[in-house]
């Protein structure tokens, strides 16, 4: 194994630094590197640093799992609930998603279930206008469940293809607010069979390990089916989604790459793995 020069401690330390600085986290990084050591041990002699990095990318892809598309119901309106902690990009993502479905020719209703935050309803109305989607809203301070109810009724009456519910940002540690969210989900379950078909947790790519606690709590409360990872146009890598996929089984479905109507992409695991090492 004379050509082992590239596979020494220093190289592994460099890889560890890259992963940790990408917010992959201590445990997931250790798992990835252990897996890599196992592969390196069995690797052909003379394989260099590039081989290892490619192995590592494969490990990352394995952790991320296969691509999972957004769920769509074969008949009636598909209901998508958008949830997450404060400021992650939920309202903006609802607007972008509405626009995407409109471009595909679908009829879209947006539900302004954030009845709490200052000017949240106005913000969503502007996005609805931009996307060409109807916005169902009540007054500020109203009951979020009632808005969800009306949005579902409107979807049935107007034969909408999609209902996208924007909810208020809430820290996962606020038990009463998580109860409120569960209630919104129950309203939707009652009104449309199979709903909500998708519960998207919006995570900010700049967040660190706390995103795992967020994902766990939101999953337990309202059964998150996918993640929209926003603000990937910044310098943060969003590595925390590896641990979330591995420990909680939640796949990333969408990524936000800007503040404009079109800045939404399907999650591409290969591109993501490449970007971790860029």
């Amino acid at each position, binding site marked *: 194994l004379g050509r082992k020069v590239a596979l020494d401690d220093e190289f592994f330390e460099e890889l560890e*630094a890259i992963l*940790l*600085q*990408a*917010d992959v*986290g*201590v445990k997931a990084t250790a798992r990835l590197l252990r897996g890599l050591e196992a592969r390196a041990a069995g690797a052909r002699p003379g394989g260099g640093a590039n081989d290892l990095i490619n192995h590592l990318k494969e490990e990352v892809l394995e952790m991320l799992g296969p691509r999972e598309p957004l769920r769509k119901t074969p008949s009636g309106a598909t209901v998508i609930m958008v949830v997450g*902690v*404060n*400021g*992650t*990009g939920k309202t903006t993502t609802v607007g972008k998603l509405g626009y995407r479905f409109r471009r595909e020719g679908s009829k879209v209703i947006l539900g302004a279930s954030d009845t*709490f*935050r*200052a*000017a949240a309803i*106005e*913000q969503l*109305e*502007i*996005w609805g206008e931009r996307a060409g989607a109807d916005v169902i809203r009540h007054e500020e301070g109203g009951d979020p469940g009632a808005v969800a109810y009306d949005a579902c009724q409107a979807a049935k009456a107007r034969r909408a293809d999609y209902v996208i519910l924007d909810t208020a940002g809430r*820290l*996962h*540690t606020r038990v009463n607010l998580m109860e409120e969210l569960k209630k919104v989900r129950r309203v939707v379950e009652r009104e449309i069979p199979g709903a909500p078909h998708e519960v998207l947790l919006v995570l*900010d790519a*700049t*967040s*660190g*390990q*706390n*995103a795992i*606690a967020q994902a766990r709590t939101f999953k337990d409360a309202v059964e998150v089916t996918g993640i929209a990872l926003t*603000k990937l*146009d*910044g*310098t*943060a890598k969003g590595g*925390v989604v590896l641990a979330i996929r591995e420990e909680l089984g939640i796949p990333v479905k969408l990524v936000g790459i800007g*503040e404009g109507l079109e800045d939404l992409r399907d999650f591409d695991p290969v591109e993501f793995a490449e970007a971790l090492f860029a």
Partner: protein
Amino acid sequence: NLTARLQETFRRLRGKGKLSERDVDEALREVRIALLEADVNFKVVRDFIARVRERACGQEVMASLTPGQQVIKIVNSELTELMGGRESKIQYSPKPPTVIMLVGLQGSGKTTTAAKLANLLKRQGKHPLLVASDTRRPAAIRQLQVLGEKVGVDVVATREGDDAVRVAKQGVARAAAIGRDVVIIDTAGRLHIDDELMDELARMKGEVNPSEVLLVVDAMTGQDAVNVAGTFNERLGLSGIILTKLDGDARGGAALSARAVTGRPIKFVGVGEKVESLEPFHPDRMASRILG
């Protein structure tokens, strides 16, 4: 938690007899893991551990009957010192109005913090004016107006799409004209790597001459905190930091990263969505929170 893990580590190590430097390194590995899990930046952790190592290899640990506790004490005191002093005050200008600019990434809590700060200063006897310089985000102006109404502070606003720098200048001029002593400027969230928008902030600073340029940082920010704080400080020059959403359970390592890379004081912390939820920064509490 870390204390328990360190005590366990030392219990095991002491079993072999006298402590060595290698034993201390093993203990410091536990500290390193705790800091990384708390989202302190990788390089900041490395520098911090190197700094602590020297003290940790000294007599206070080696000769102690409870070396684990000693290491915790050292780490805690070094971390508290790095967190800075308790400077939870606004730097007022000798020539009013005092201008405060709030800057930072998208969604960090600037608009809400602007209203909170106005509320705080009003209660301290000041006469603040809020300026809605985020002319970009949908309904941002409206958001600040609603919050301004809530705290009983006037908001200077024009229209979405107007030039942000001009609105800021107008706001300051208005404050001077009606005798307000503090102007709080809410700016649009932006990426530190967006040159055009960072230039806009630099121009705004040049025009309104603020005594405070405060970076608003989300407490759950991870490794990227070092890039964001570093770049905002380089491009603009910051006078301080406000850490938001500390009412959650994020350990808040971003605080140490931001301090380490800018040297600026963390002046206030946001601890909720209500306008009263702004508190002075406590370095010792932050240190123990980060250590877990």
